[in-house]
């Protein structure tokens, strides 16, 4: 029968305010071909979102904007879905060229399994995974909501990956209870913490949800270290030196920064550190993620703030 290449579909599910948009923003801006150290890891993602505005993509990343689509400079595309999912899938599947990966930001009340139905009927799609975000700070409210509790349970039930968001806003007891509750409900599903949507991309994309391919358990089980903050005026050579020192445990870093030579973008991806001049105003935002063996967030903060100009 049909032997067309199948496009993986990832569904990001979770309640309003659970951090879906941050995660998607992270995937979109970090995933394009130009960020890729090799052909293999670069993905042109088409994201289907409820609302562009909330996504808040850096203006410098936007290449073109027409109708309900935004094309990013890195090859990714963003489409708004309104309330007609079928129409959106028709549009996206008629794109040329077709994307490498489709990520859909489900609405806070969507049942991800129903969305997954599109992948099961479209020979050109396959379900890669359902990622459900659980807001640690609101779990007790959401799981008892008189109108939404059934939805909440269905979203967790459908997950191939559970992400606990805003862990910093919940006390230790709440967090521990939540983790054991989720583990009891979904014993085989990997679980990780996420803050501001920042995760290694390969954790989220490539789940092969319907094919039970083994997960990189050690990364997920032990979590990973990350730190994000704003850096003012840091010379690129100094920053690169700090990153070199963190090898081999550093996995990913990105920043839109400034030094005496002007604004620049820095990427560390797939072991490669690159910098490029940047046309807009540098936000100073900087993110770093690494394996558990890397110094912890507090230590990272110290390291990166060390010779920041006052």
């Amino acid at each position, binding site marked *: 029968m049909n032997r067309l290449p199948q496009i993986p579909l990832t569904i990001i599910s979770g309640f309003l305010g659970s951090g879906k948009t941050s995660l998607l923003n992270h995937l979109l801006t970090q995933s394009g071909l130009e960020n890729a150290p090799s052909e293999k890891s670069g993905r042109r993602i088409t994201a289907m979102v409820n609302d562009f505005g909330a996504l808040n993509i850096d203006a410098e990343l936007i290449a073109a904007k027409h109708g309900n689509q935004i094309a990013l400079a890195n090859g990714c595309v963003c489409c708004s879905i309104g309330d007609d999912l079928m129409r959106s*899938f028709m549009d996206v599947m008629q794109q040329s060229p077709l994307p490498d990966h489709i990520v859909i930001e489900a609405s806070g009340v969507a049942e991800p399994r129903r969305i997954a139905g599109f992948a099961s009927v479209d020979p050109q799609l396959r379900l890669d995974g359902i990622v459900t975000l659980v807001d640690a700070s609101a779990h007790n409210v959401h799981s008892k909501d008189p109108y939404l509790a059934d939805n909440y349970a269905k979203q967790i039930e459908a997950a191939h990956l559970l992400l606990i968001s805003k862990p910093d806003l919940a006390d230790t007891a709440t967090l521990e209870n939540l983790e054991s509750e989720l583990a009891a409900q979904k014993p085989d599903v990997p679980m990780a913490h996420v803050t501001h949507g920042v995760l290694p991309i390969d954790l989220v994309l490539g789940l092969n949800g319907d094919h039970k391919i083994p997960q990189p358990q050690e990364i997920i089980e032990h979590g990973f270290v990350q730190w994000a903050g704003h850096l003012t005026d840091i010379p690129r050579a100094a920053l690169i030196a700090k990153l070199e020192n963190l090898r081999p445990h550093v996995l990913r870093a990105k920043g839109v920064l400034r030094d005496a030579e002007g604004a620049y973008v820095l990427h560390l991806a797939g072991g490669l550190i690159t910098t490029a001049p940047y046309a807009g105003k540098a936000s100073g935002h900087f993110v770093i993620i690494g394996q558990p063996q890397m110094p912890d967030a507090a230590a990272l903060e110290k390291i990166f703030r060390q010779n920041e100009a006052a």
Partner: protein
Amino acid sequence: MNPHLPHATHIAVRDGHILGVGTVDDIDGWQNAWGPLELNADFADKTLLPGFIEGHSHMMEGMFWDYHYVGYYDREGPDGTVWPGLKSIDEVVAKLKEIQAARKDIDTPLIAWGFDPIYFTDRRMNAADLDSVATDCSVIVLHASLHILNANNFVMEAADVKGADNSEFIRRDESGQATGEFLGQLGYYMAMRTTGINLLAIASSPETLVNFANVARQTGVTTATDLVNPMPAGSEQAMREAVDADDFPMRLVVAFQGNSMEPAEGVARMQELQTSNSDKLRFSLVKMVADGSIQGFSARLKWPHYYNGAPNGLWYIEPERLGDYLKAFTEAGIQVHVHTNGDECTEVALDKIEEALRAHPWPDHRHTLQHCQMATRSDFKRMKSLGVGVNLFSNHLYYWGDAHINITMGPERAARLDDAGGALAEGVPLAIHSDAPVTALAPLFTAWCAVNRLSSGGVTLGNGTQNISVEEALYAITMGAAYSLKMENEIGSLEAGKRADIAILADDPIDVGAEGLKDISVIGTMVGGHVHLNQGRAR
């Protein structure tokens, strides 16, 4: 519908408006001021009613006339051609063969619509039926309900249905063979992806709009709604051009799709759209969809939920977000119509409207619940208190009444399905609708449904308190709908000063009575003084 003059013999029209209504002597006096009036006796033996107003329809209705009609009843196309009703599956297949033989591009998909299996109880249409029409191109027959379609084996092979194990969207016989029926949204998606035809993309062209108006006109409609349209930037110009043309036989009220952008942007877009309002085209309200449909098990029901035990349905928007939108539009003085089907959804919508009104009090907001099919008397009391109107989906009584009794709601709750009698008894402003193309657009048929409450299976829903009288139903499809659109000062009744929008009927509905309401022939309409006659005959 004018309480001061419910019946009259003559009507005078000037400049698109009604100059006077009454006896020939009453009208005579106007000639002093307005010069000689010419007597037109063409419709002397007909009945004139205020033009009907369809308060909840979709422009998509106009799309189907690009395809081939194979419904049970005779139907007149927008160009006046009468498509005869087909009374058996064999007749449908014979008609499709005839069409296929006459087609030039025989490799392109053959698409037909309006097929209604309710009338064919001996067997269901299958892939072999459609293979006899063609085996080397797609043949697709859309059901009248738009929830099912039939296809031939060409489509089934392309869609690889053998590999699909999900019975949710593929009907199978006892032996597990796919029968050729594709079910629900996913079934439609599968068929569209296979044939490469995007039915949804065609739904918003100017041709579709003209077809929609002509279909509505034939049923006596002089104002219809396109009850949810995302109105992409600039799309209002083309719409203005089409609707303002003299030969466009209808007024159109467009509801902006509230959630197509963030609340603040939506308010700004609505304000921008309103600058394009004209006599015939109005952007006056916002539509929000809060849940799904009862027959699709996607409506949100209160405990004890669905009669057959199906899990509760879907929210189409987070209740919190619905609240945000209602607050923003209420603050800006923009009317909102909220789609709610299940009773849980109705309750939440009323909660959110109440919150919005506490934050931004507005005495005549006239927010309206659309469908609102499971509302209880308590819900209606609360709507009355909040100043919320209702537009009930009365056609459901006929099309899905039996399913609601036996499968979705159970007999007790189905008795109150689309309780027009209850709404009026509690003092809630009432309109009734078809939701075309979901069911047939024909206000007299909708009125018949609300008056008789008879299902297609021949069962009467309720105990009589839910029925309304013929007069009340006629009011609902004229003044009731006008009120829900805040246009009651312009249309909905025949009285001096209002727009000259008239439905011309072969018989007087009051004389015909409850039973024959749906069968009254519509001769034509007048819109703003322009007469539009039906060329063939009505359904």
